[in-house]
């Protein structure tokens, strides 16, 4: 029996947890003895081929930021992002693959890590999910599934703490923010809805502190504090320190050194809260949006569970207390519960798909746990209905499977051919909530051939189904002829990297000297 593990591949920190003999998740420390590893990569200049990942990479970054990468998760799925080092263009998948390799090699000392579930923000789309799975494959892992971070956290809370009723998971991490509303009854978890903000996390709070630094320096010296990437890297780290200190103390004093001279600065918690007010407003909006989606009011929420390092900020906890009227629940360590929950999810996935791979002890430990997830996005198709106002055909995205529908699910809609003698139609599968096709993601397009010589208005039934393995099946059925067009895909199947490219990149990462 191989070790069953879950990985939280975070924007600022990553962690790996495994299931013990009785199905309880536990964090596996890295080789430095730390329970979490900074998601940072540094390519050594003097020792060719040496790649540092984690704390060492953070420490080296200030010396040569050109050879360092942090917060790579923000670029997952972005085909245009590349980091060019010594003639090699590193993709976000490869950089993430290096971080995962470090976790894998550090945590495989007791027993080898192979089958894993990796967590992603709830709002990640297909491309980003696929990129995350590819990163795991590049690191030599067998990625058996992907789990939404708040779902993983909820799994951990539900199985280890006494939580019951309608619960809101508030996941404010290093780079992303997710709100998930779920119902917990013992060890049975039903996800109701999720909402996420891709650009809201610790990094953005740090940026506000840098802006405060710059403002003070400009006022004092009428010059710019940050002149180059080295300065930026330095003050990014300083800002992170200030932010953390302000969670414990009311003010922080610093000396800022710039080319025009130094300046002593004092930042108070009040100043900081004012600076981050618009970011806090975003979290509040997202909570309201999630509550609206769940058709719930504030009073329906019985518990608020905190996840992610940024929830340590007193202003976050204070605002949540003001909104809900009770203290939010804080886990033993908010940085670890996603990885711990991901390990439970890995156990549940293996139990469902390959029960023989799971030991009796783990199976017994997880036998009471039930998880019902929902569709993370809306799926639809492009059609051309008649606009009531103009009387003309307009191109529209029509949603067939709605976001937050419990899995497994299925939905059918009927459309009609537009013209006499129409012999084909473009079957487009979209992901997104918009009616305007310009704003949705077209994830597949196929041509459906129809019989010739028919008048218009022939019915075409479009059926989408989505199963618990996140496998989606789309069927376009021409009622008259019985002809069908079937499109099937699974999360992680269609991505930017071809299998041959993945294999080639995996070999390169396998050969890389990651420390």
């Amino acid at each position: 029996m191989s070790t069953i593990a879950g990985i939280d591949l975070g924007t600022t920190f990553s962690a790996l947890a495994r299931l013990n003999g009785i199905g309880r998740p536990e964090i596996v420390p890295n080789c430095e003895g730390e329970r979490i590893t900074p998601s940072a990569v540094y390519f050594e200049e003097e020792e060719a081929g040496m790649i540092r990942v984690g704390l060492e990479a953070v420490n080296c970054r200030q010396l040569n930021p050109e050879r360092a990468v942090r917060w790579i998760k923000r670029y997952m799925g972005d085909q245009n992002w590349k980091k060019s080092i010594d003639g090699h263009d590193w993709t976000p998948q490869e950089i993430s693959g290096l971080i995962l390799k470090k976790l894998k090699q550090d945590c495989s000392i007791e027993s080898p890590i192979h089958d894993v579930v990796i967590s992603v923000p709830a709002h990640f789309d297909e491309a980003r999910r696929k990129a995350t799975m590819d990163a795991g494959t590049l690191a030599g892992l067998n990625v058996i599934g992907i789990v939404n971070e708040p779902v993983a956290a909820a799994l951990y809370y539900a199985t280890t703490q006494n939580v019951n009723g309608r619960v809101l998971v508030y996941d404010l991490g290093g780079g992303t923010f997710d709100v998930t509303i779920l119902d917990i009854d013992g060890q049975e978890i039903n996800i109701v809805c999720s909402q996420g903000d891709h650009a809201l996390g610790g990094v953005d709070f740090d940026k506000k502190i840098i802006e405060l630094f710059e403002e003070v320096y400009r006022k004092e010296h009428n010059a710019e504090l940050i002149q180059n990437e080295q300065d930026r890297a330095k003050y990014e780290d300083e800002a992170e320190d200030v932010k953390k200190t302000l969670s414990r103390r009311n003010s922080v004093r610093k000396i800022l050194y710039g080319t025009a001279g130094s300046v002593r600065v004092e930042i108070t918690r009040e100043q900081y809260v004012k600076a981050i007010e618009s970011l806090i407003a975003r979290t509040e909006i997202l909570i309201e949006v999630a509550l609206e989606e769940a058709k719930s009011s504030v009073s329906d929420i019985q518990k608020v569970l905190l996840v992610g390092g940024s929830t340590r900020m007193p202003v976050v906890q204070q605002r949540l207390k003001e909104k809900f009227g009770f203290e939010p629940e804080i886990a033993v360590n908010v940085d670890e519960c996603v990885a711990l929950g991901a390990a439970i999810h890995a156990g549940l996935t293996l139990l469902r798909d390959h029960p023989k791979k799971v030991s009796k002890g783990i199976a017994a430990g997880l036998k009471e746990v039930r998880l019902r997830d929902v569709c993370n996005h809306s799926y639809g198709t492009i059609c051309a209905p008649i606009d009531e106002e103009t009387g003309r055909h307009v191109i529209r995205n029509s949603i067939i499977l709605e976001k937050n529908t419990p899995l497994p699910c299925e939905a059918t809609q009927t459309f009609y051919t537009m013209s006499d003698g129409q012999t084909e139609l473009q079957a487009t599968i979209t992901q997104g909530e918009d009616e305007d096709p310009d704003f949705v993601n077209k994830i597949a397009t196929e041509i459906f051939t129809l019989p010739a010589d028919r008048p218009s208005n022939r019915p075409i039934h479009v059926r989408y189904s989505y199963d618990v393995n996140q496998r989606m099946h789309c069927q376009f059925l021409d009622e008259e002829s019985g002809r069908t067009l079937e499109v099937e895909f699974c999360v992680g199947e269609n991505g930017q990297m071809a299998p041959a490219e993945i294999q080639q990149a995996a070999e390169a990462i396998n050969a890389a000297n990651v420390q």
Partner: protein
Amino acid sequence: MMIGIFVTGFVLAAGFAAVWFSPRRGGLLQILSALDRFRFISRVEQLTDESLPSGEDQFFRVKMIGRIPTEEDNVDTDMQLEIQDITEGRSHPQQVLSADEQYRSENNAGFHFIRHNGIVPEKNSVLARWATVAQFPCHILRFSHRGRRKLMFCVSVLEAETGRKLTAAQKMIEYVYCSDGYREVHSRRCDILKSCIELAVFSCGQTPPFSRDIQSLWTTWLQEKSDLFTSAEEAEGMVEQIAENASALALEASAETLLAYGQGTDVFLALELALQTAGFYGNVTLDMYQRLARIVKMLQIRQDRFLAMAQKVLLSSGCHIEEPSYLLGISPDMDEASFRKRLNEEYRKWNARVTHPDAQIRDQADRVLTLIANIRTQRFQTCS
């Protein structure tokens, strides 16, 4: 007696010869041809098929009969049908257009029909029975003007190889055309486009003279949105004419023209141009926004449609917007619940766009999310 007959015969022969060699020879030929009982003639029947919906139930059936003169035996022939609108006189024929490609020539929309007729076996063969040249629905025809029209149907038999006309016959009928004629439609379309530009001029709140750049925006728009103009100069001419008279613009009249004669989409075309014009200056002022709102009210456009279009045009243009909360449907007099609801709706919409594959849409969504958060912060800070 004999002398009398001889003289009469001589006079008749001399008269015939005099007319034959004079310009009146055509008339003489007509008289002679009318005397020919096998002369080539045509007829036009107007039929009704009651099984078809009203408006599509009328048909023209055109037939021909008579002699087809050829210079040799076994000549392959085509038959051709043309229609002219001679309501304003034979000397001023108007083109009749066809909405059906089957009854059009290759190069233009004018009515034209030609099909194979077959072999004429001998010189001067006679088509002894009425043969159908064409049968087509009346509603495919387009005339220059609405009302009673005089139509000349011209049927010809052509030599297939050379296209030479062997014989022809004409038949005039009267027909009542109940739709707007294409000249009326063209002139109205010009009025509609003119109204769109006039509203755009109003939206920017600028006074003449206008810059070449903004005039060029309007000219390009005219050419893109309409095939009325055969040249850029023609479209420029319309823009210059409006720009010259901009100080005397009657906004209500322009809106009324659009509402009265425009199609459903025209009001949205007008709004799109007004938005592009407002965004063109790089700074959408409160005054411009109020002008846009006035246009929207006059064109009876729904608020949600206006907001969707305004967001799409203005937020993607990268121009500065003086009071962005209006673009998100927020007004200063909104109560707290409506304010939150509206802002949350906008947040949900833009947050879903933030992971779009197109980087431009992602950036736009990012900017709007920041904007929404700032508007909310501002409101609640003001309240507290």
